[in-house]
């Protein structure tokens, strides 16, 4: 009987086990269904982003660090230079390899690409390569080295050969260093570029400075506006917010061109000032930094007002009243009680405005002068004008890095989860 009871108990326990197992399986099944459904809902957007955004941008950015033209076009000399110590001129075999490569490339018609790439690094390399291709005798008598140096003494300089080796890939820091006005010398150590070519540090600094100034002006102009709107009854606040958002219904290009119309020498503002006798000759208000600031602040201001408004709306008036009843003068009440509570809004607004300002292209291009162009202008210049995609990609990497760094700093200081975007 005892044994029977034990068996029954055992069976019951096993049954319980089975039950528990069934339950777990059922739970897993239902969870998996939910996950699949969620995945199915996200999938179209995910595929779209992957195909139209992540992959092309990744491919573009990779051109800033991948460098395979020279290995492809001049394979023999690249291989020969792998073992070159760089202290003396390369061995005779390297010269011979180069001559062979140049001949092959001329026939294949690919020499121009190689010349373009090497010319980025050492100006004049194009001529060097082409004249070598033209002047090399059909049959080489004697040393290949003497033949090349005979065509151009530069073939006797280490720097020429270092440039070929640097371009040998497959990865390169040439463009990235270039974006920071740096280069590698013949020994492979990083040095400053020639002073007449140093522009990108200025451009990067200018980009950051303009963005910072625009952000600051947006805070100064947007904070009071957001405050006034947040203090209105909901109906009127809606109307005022609509007015703030009005610029969004107009294209960026139209708004920028409108500023050209307003600010130019014979523009609306100058005519008005002249007719009122405020000035005697037209003010220069366009194609300079002033115009860039005005137009960018105008375009970006809503991105500051919205998060500020959203945060301010959630601060009950009783805080400032409490501060006032406790003896704080209006400014003290604002500075110590109200303003600190709007910091998440200020942070979010600054982040949005600054990051967008960093990438601004059309506005400075249309209303700014030569010294007001930002980094995007140079990216566009290299991408479409000179088709130096490596450089365009390297500058884009700089821009992306600056943006991500900024985001990280914000996250560290204020916390992205506290960000309020309206």
């Amino acid at each position, binding site marked *: 009987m005892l044994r029977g009871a034990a068996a029954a108990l055992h069976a019951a326990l096993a049954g319980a086990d089975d039950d528990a197992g069934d339950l777990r399986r059922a739970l897993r099944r239902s969870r998996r269904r939910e996950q699949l459904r969620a995945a199915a809902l996200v999938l179209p957007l995910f595929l779209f982003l992957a195909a139209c955004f992540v992959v092309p941008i990744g491919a573009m950015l990779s051109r800033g660090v991948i460098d395979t033209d020279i290995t492809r076009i001049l394979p023999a000399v690249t291989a020969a230079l792998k073992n070159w110590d760089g202290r003396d001129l390369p061995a005779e075999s390297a010269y011979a390899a180069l001559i062979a490569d140049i001949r092959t490339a001329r026939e294949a018609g690919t020499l121009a690409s190689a010349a373009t790439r090497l010319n980025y690094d050492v100006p004049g390399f194009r001529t060097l390569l082409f004249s070598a291709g033209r002047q090399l005798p059909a049959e080489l008598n004697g040393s290949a080295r003497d033949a090349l140096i005979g065509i151009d003494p530069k073939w006797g300089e280490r720097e020429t050969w270092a440039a070929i080796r640097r371009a040998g890939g497959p990865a390169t820091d040439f463009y990235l260093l270039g974006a920071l006005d740096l280069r590698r010398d013949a020994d492979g150590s990083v040095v400053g570029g020639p002073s007449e070519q140093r522009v990108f540090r200025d451009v990067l600094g200018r980009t950051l400075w303009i963005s910072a100034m625009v952000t600051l002006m947006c805070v100064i102009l947007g904070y009071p506006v957001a405050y006034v709107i947040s203090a209105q009854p909901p109906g009127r606040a809606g109307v005022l917010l609509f007015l703030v958002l009005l610029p969004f219904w107009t294209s960026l290009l139209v708004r920028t061109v409108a500023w050209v119309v307003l600010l130019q020498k014979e523009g609306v503002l100058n005519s008005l000032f002249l007719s009122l006798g405020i000035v005697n000759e037209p003010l220069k208000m366009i194609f300079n930094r002033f115009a860039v600031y005005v137009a960018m602040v105008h375009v970006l201001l809503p991105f500051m007002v919205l998060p500020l408004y959203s945060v301010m709306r959630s601060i*009950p008036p*009783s*805080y400032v*009243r*409490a*501060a*006032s*009843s*406790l*003896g*704080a*003068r*209006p400014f*003290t*009440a604002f500075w*110590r*009680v109200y303003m*600190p*509570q709007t910091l998440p809004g200020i942070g979010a607004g600054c982040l949005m405005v600054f990051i967008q300002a960093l990438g601004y292209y059309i506005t400075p291009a249309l209303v700014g002068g030569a010294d007001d162009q930002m980094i995007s202008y140079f990216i566009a210049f290299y991408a479409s004008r000179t088709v130096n995609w490596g450089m365009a990609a390297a500058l884009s990497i700089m821009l992306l890095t600056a943006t991500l760094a900024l985001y990280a700093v914000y996250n560290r200081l204020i916390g992205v989860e506290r960000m309020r975007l309206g």
Partner: protein
Amino acid sequence: MNIVGADARQMARLNGREPIVRFVGIGKTYDGVTRVVDELHLDVERGEFLTLLGPSGSGKTTTLMLLAGFETPTAGEILLEGKPLSRVPPYQRHIGMVFQNYALFPHMSVDENIAFPLSVRGVPAADIAKRVERALDMVQLGGFGRRRPAQLSGGQQQRVAVARALVFEPKLILMDEPLGALDKQLREQMQLEIRRLHQRLGVTMVYVTHDQAEALTMSDRIAVFHRGKIQQLDTPEQMYEYPKNAFVARFIGENNRLDGKLETHADGRCTIRMTAGDTRIDGTLVEPVKNGDVVTVSLRPERVQIRAAGHTLNGHPGCRLAGSLQEIIYLGDHVRARVVLTSGGEFMVKRPISEAHTLPRIGAVVDVFWAPEHCRAFAQES
């Protein structure tokens, strides 16, 4: 129950000291049509606990905000210790205030919150630390100074708000429904705590609430507001036992209300012919009303007795109505009996639990009766 406050007031009067606050003909309107506060005259005595009680929209909170300086009167003048307040901004009034949702600054610790009124007054840091600690001890929150308001319970936040309003030693403290967000048990505990603080510190407090039980528990005096006017200003006991008009009678405590017409009156006693049925009852006439006018009769349920019909008790002949007992509700500390009157209408009777077993059975024909002084007749509410 309110001996301390009552004595303080008495002493103030004897010393010939003037009230700490005087509202002189104060009016407030937002739209030029509705008078939110209408021709208000009110003296706040030094050291008292005065409650402004009324339904929402009665003008009590506006009156408090006028005193705090967050609203400006459209008529009249408020005097604080004899000096007109209309040109004094809130931050110079030196009045402590506890807000409905406490308004503790969320980005500051408890210590910083309490130190705020001191630091804006330029009190030296060493003094601030000492006074903040004392204030925290006073509200039994010693050791909580480092926390943020969000890390405290509702009751603790409430105490911090009180400590912050007290720490700069204002002569007057205003409280705007400060216990509204707390649950019942905590609210009752805090009522007693605030009252004890008031008695210990002797500071004048003006307290706004819509909860009549809270007003009765805490106050030296209560001002009942309705439509921008003070309907009655009295001690809790007077307010409850001797309401001066139908609104106060209805708003404070429970009531059996009967409508009728005044038939005769003399020396404060009166006879009323009930609207429903052909009955007359006797009562006390509270307001001057002409014979034949409509009146409202109010009877507190706890002042009414109930007996099965044919009982031998000899009450006052005009203080009795017949009906049938419909329901008995047991409430632990007392019982309620619901009676449907023969003349129509319902009547609630409230008896102590000790009488529970003497009540007639449900369905029985009963008499409800009372003493004539507890049957109060008012002019009908307009």
